[in-house]
């Protein structure tokens, strides 16, 4: 009996888990145009939900995420380009809303820091190897 019940509970949980994974658009005012929805979906997986900050606008259930999705729908419907929609959000919430950080003065270190480290590492390697070669050479000439 108990096992049977557990199986049923398990099944219900399994099915309900799948019904929520896709996106959180369930409670949204969905646009009539599939093109608008497609663009919204494409945009909202690139944008951060400010409330639960590691999820995207597409899969957040936070009320603010819903509001922002509705704003984006409105912007798309009124003929704004994808860039304009992103600019609208960046103007209000800062670069943090985009998951791909833009290249500007405050993110320069983030973008170019790794290459800088690589160059420093290479220079150090060359210097150390040259020194070692010199030492070895000196040793060989010893009687």
């Amino acid at each position, binding site marked *: 009996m108990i096992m049977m019940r557990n199986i049923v509970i398990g099944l219900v949980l399994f099915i309900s888990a799948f019904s929520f994974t896709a996106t959180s658009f369930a409670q949204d005012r969905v646009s009539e145009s599939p093109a608008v929805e497609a663009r919204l979906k494409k945009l909202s997986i690139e944008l951060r939900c*400010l409330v639960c900050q590691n999820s995207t606008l597409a899969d957040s259930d936070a009320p603010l995420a819903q*509001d922002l999705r509705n704003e984006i729908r409105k912007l798309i419907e009124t003929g704004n380009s994808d860039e304009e929609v992103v600019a609208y959000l960046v103007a209000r919430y*800062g670069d943090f809303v985009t998951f791909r950080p833009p290249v500007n003065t405050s993110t320069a270190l983030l973008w170019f820091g790794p290459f800088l480290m690589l160059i420093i590492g290479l220079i150090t390697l060359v210097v150390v190897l040259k020194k070692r070669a010199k030492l070895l050479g000196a040793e060989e000439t010893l009687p």
Partner: protein
Amino acid sequence: MKLKFILPLVLFFVLVAFLGKGLFLDPREVPSPLIGKPAPAFEAPVLGDPSKTFSPADMKGKVWLLNTWASWCVACREEHPLLIEMLAHDIPLYGLGYKDVEKDALDLLDKMGNPYIITANDADGTIGIDYGVYGVPETYIIDKAGIIRYKQIGPITPESLRDKILPLLKALNA
């Protein structure tokens, strides 16, 4: 030769300094791009008196605070007694009722006291979006020219009031 030993030590301390600073940063705090920019314009009905409207344009020439709040917001209740205390400092505090039911908001002000000169009612939260609100309470300090000078994310604390808000208000009013 000495450099070989000192350099790693210096690098180590630089790293410690960065990591140490990181410990005291709040990763949830998103710096507002609106600081130094004009406060977004809006015209919203006054809470409790919807025949009247409030707009930031009415405040030109004054230094004022805009505090976003809601009756459903727990942190706002935490902050509320301090806002009431701020009345004594003669601070022009205006409210923005964020996504609230008007009756609930008025009930809360009845129960806990009303620290606001006026609360503008942003029932659907669109004004909040223009101000980059992502978690009430948030408080903006707006100067005489209508420029946002400071944003407090989360409840105002006695420390932030003493160390940031009051000195800034004094400087802006000077």
